[in-house]
C-alpha cells in the first residue's frame, strides 16, 4: 500500500443533457495534442470522443482513460431515461475490443492528460470550447494513495510489450538505436 497524501484532483463533469453534439471537444483536443501544438487536427486522435446517435437520443462525451491489455467480459446494456447504452459506451479504456482511444496510424493508446501545458491552461481545452457547459471543469481535494503517474511513452510501450513481448520490444529498440548510431557515424564520415 502506498502512502496517503492530499492531492488536487482535476475532474471534468459531463452533463449529457447539455451536449449539442457538435464535436468541438474532439476537434480542439486533437489540435491541442498535435505537435507542434494546433498544427493539425483529427478527431480520430482525440482523447475525448463523442458518442452521438441522434435518433437514439445518445450524446455521450467520454474521456480516454487507462490502457488495458485485455478486453473485459462486460457487454451489458444500460437503459437510462429510456435510452439504451452499451456498457462499453461509458468505458474510458483503450482496449483490444475496439478502435477508440488509439492513434489511428500506430494503434498506440491515447489518454486524457487534462491538457497539461506550460504555462498551465486554466481549464482543459475541451471545456473551454464547450460553450454550452456540457463539459465543466472541477478541482477537488482528495486523499489518495501516492502512485507514480505513468508517462505517455510508458503507456505506449506497455501496450507494445503486451502485444509483442518484452524481449522483442527491447531487441527492436536496441536495433533502432544501433541504426541511429550507424547513420550518425556515416554522417560524420
Amino acid at each position, binding site marked *: 500500500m502506498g502512502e496517503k497524501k492530499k492531492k488536487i484532483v482535476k475532474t471534468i463533469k459531463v452533463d449529457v443533457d447539455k451536449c449539442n*453534439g*457538435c*464535436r468541438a471537444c474532439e476537434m480542439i483536443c486533437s489540435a491541442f495534442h498535435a505537435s*507542434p501544438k494546433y498544427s493539425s487536427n*483529427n478527431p480520430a*486522435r482525440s482523447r475525448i470522443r463523442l458518442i452521438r446517435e441522434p435518433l437514439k437520443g445518445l450524446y455521450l462525451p467520454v474521456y480516454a482513460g487507462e490502457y488495458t491489455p485485455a478486453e473485459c467480459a462486460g457487454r451489458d446494456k444500460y437503459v437510462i431515461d429510456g435510452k439504451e447504452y452499451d456498457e462499453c459506451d461509458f468505458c474510458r479504456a483503450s482496449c483490444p475490443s475496439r478502435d477508440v482511444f488509439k492513434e489511428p496510424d500506430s494503434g498506440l493508446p491515447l489518454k486524457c492528460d487534462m491538457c497539461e501545458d506550460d504555462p498551465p491552461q486554466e481549464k482543459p481545452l475541451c471545456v473551454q470550447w464547450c460553450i454550452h457547459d456540457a463539459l465543466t471543469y472541477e478541482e477537488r481535494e482528495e486523499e489518495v494513495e501516492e502512485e507514480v503517474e505513468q508517462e505517455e511513452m510508458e503507456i505506449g510501450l506497455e501496450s507494445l510489450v503486451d502485444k509483442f513481448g518484452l524481449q522483442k520490444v527491447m531487441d527492436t529498440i536496441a536495433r533502432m538505436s544501433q541504426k541511429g548510431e550507424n547513420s550518425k557515424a556515416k554522417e560524420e564520415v
Partner: protein
Amino acid sequence: MRYAETGFNLEIDLSRGSIERVATDPRLTELHLGGLGTNAKILWDRVPPEVEPFSPDNLLIFSTGLLGGTPTPGANRTIVSTFSPQTLLMAYSMMGGFWAPELKYAGYDKVIIRGKSPDLVYLWINNDKVEIRDASHLQGKGALETAELIREELKEPKAQMAAIGLAGENRVYYASIEHGRSSASRGGIGAVMGDKGLKAIAVRGTKDINIARPDEFIELCNEVLQYIQYRAENPIKGVPPILAGIGSPQEMAIDDEQWHTTSFAWGNARHRRKDFWTKEIEEQWKKTQEKAVERLISCHNCPMKCGAIVTYPALGVSKYMMKCYSKLTYTMAAMSDLDFGFRIAGHAQEYGVDGYTTPQVMAFAVELYEAGILTDEDLPGFPSDNEERFFWLLDRIVRREGIGDVLANGVYWAARHIGKGAEAYDRNTIKKHEQIPIKLGMLNPIYYIMWSTGEKANITQIEGQLPQAPFPTRELREEFVKDWIQVPDEKFKRFILDWGEPGTSFPDYPSIDLICDLVDWQETMHYIDDATGVCAGLSSFPLKPPYHIHNLPNFISSATGIDIDEDGLWEIARRNRNLLRAINVRRGMRRKDEKPPEDHWRKRFPEYEAKLLDEYYKFKGWNKEGIPTKETLDNLGLDYVSKDFVERGILTDNEGSLSKEASA
C-alpha cells in the same frame, strides 16, 4: 505539404466503375479557394454547355470548403454542384452537418462523380479504401432510413451519410440530398444523383488536416467562439426575435412566428395574412413546438443549435431531424397549422424533396384544381380534406404517378405542360425555380437586384448582414452602428443612420450607387463562405456575424499559408462570382431571365427596375445582357472564358470596348 485542404480529389466514374485519387493544382486554391469556386472551375472546364443534366457526362461534385474540417468554428458545409434538370443552369446547394469534414479526414477535398451506374449503388469511402457497393436492397427506402441501414451494414456508426430518397431515384426535379439534420435541396441535385444510380455516399476518415500558422489560427478561432457567446447575450435590439441572434434563423428554438406568418405569403404564394398571429395561435403553436422538439442539435464544430430532433414519426423512422424553415413552408402552403407542418415535413424529408419547392408545387396544384384547370379526371381520388390533399400529392409526386409525373418537374414546367391558363398560376419562380413565397407592397430596390441577378436560387444565400427594414428610432440606429465592425466601408453605417428619417423610403432611396454597393457586399460575403465552407449562419447571413471581411482573410491566411488580404479575398470572390455567371451565360442565361416573381411586390416601376439592372450590370462589369465583359473577365484572370465567349459569339471584341466606356 498542403494546409487546410488535402490536395486530393476522388474521381468516380460510375459507368466504368473506376475510382481514382487525383492530386489537385495548388494554383487553383490561390485563384478560387475551394468549395463552390473550384467546383465552378471544374464544371467550366469539363462540362460543355450542350451536356444535358441527365447525361452521363454531367458531373455531380460533392465538395468541402477550404476551411472545412479545420477547427474553424462552423466550417462544415458540403457544397454540391451540378447542372439542374429544372433550371438547366448550374445548380448548387449546400448542406451543414458532418459530411464534408469527414471527407477531409478521409483525405479528399472533393468527390467528383461522372457516368451512370446501370444498377443502384452506393459509395463507401473509408480513408484510402473506396468501394462502389450494391444498393438494390435500399431501393425506395427513405433517406434517413437508408443512412441507418448502411451504417449497420458497414458496422461503422461513425460513417457520415449523404443519401437520396424515392424522389431522387425517380428524378423529381426538386429532389434533395439528405444528411441527417441537413440537406442540399435546391436545384434538383438529388435527381442528378438518382439519375447516376447513386443512392448514397458513406464516408469515414481518420487522417489529419494541417494548419500552416497554428498559433495565429487558433487565436482567431478563440475570438470567434468568444464573439458567439457575446452575441448570444447581446441580441440586436429593434428587430423581431427571429432576426436578433446569429446562426441560421432559430426556427427550432423560437416559437414566436409572428414575423414569418404575417410577412410571408400563404398558399400558392398568394395570400398575405397580416392578422394571422393571434394569442390563441401563439399558445397552440407553442404547445405544438414543445411537443415536437426533443432536443436542439448542432452541426460539426459549431455551437449554434439551429437543428432539432423532432419526435414525429416519418415513413421508416420513428423520429427525424429538422432545421430552419421547413416547419413553416408546408404549414403555410397548405394554409394549415404547425402540427401539420411537422407531420408532413418528416415524410417529405424521407422521400428527399426540397422543403421550399415542394409545398409550392402542391399549393399550385390545389389552386389549379380549385380553378377548374385540373379536374377529377386529372386527380382521380383526390381527397376533399386539405391536409390529406397535400399528403396525396406528395405520394404521387415522388413516385411520378399520374399527375405527379407532371408536378414532379416543378411549377414552371408543369404549368406549361398543363396549359389551359395554368401559366398564370406560376407566380413564384425565378429562372424556373420556386422561391420562398413573399408578397410585399412597395418595391425594395436592394432586394429587386438580389432576386433578379442571384444565381443561387435562394434569397437566403444572397442576402444578409443588412437590416431588412429601417430601425424605428434614431437611438436604435445609433446603437446598431456603434459596434458594427463587420462593414467593409463606413458609408454603410451612414446609410443605416439615415434610413428611417423623412424622405428615406423606397423606391427612390437610397441612391443607385449605394444600392449596388449594398448588394455587392452581401453577395460577396456569401461567395466567400461558399468557397471556405463556413456556414452562412455564422457569417454572411445574420446581422453582426462573427465572421466578416476583416477577419476572414486572416483565417484563410493562417490556415493555408497563402497570404490573402481583404482586397485579395474580395477579388477571389469576384472571380468565382463571374465564373459562375459565365457558366450560366454559356448555357443561355440572359437579361430576360433576370426578374423577380411577378407577384413579389404590388407596386412596381418597370423603368426604374430596368435602370437598376443596367446600373448593377455596369457596376459588376457586365454588359447590357448581364454578360461579363472581356475586360472584366481578363482582369480576373478568366481570359480563357472571354476567349470562349468570343469564339462562340457570346461576346464580340466590340462589346468589350463598349462596356469599357460605360464603366469609365
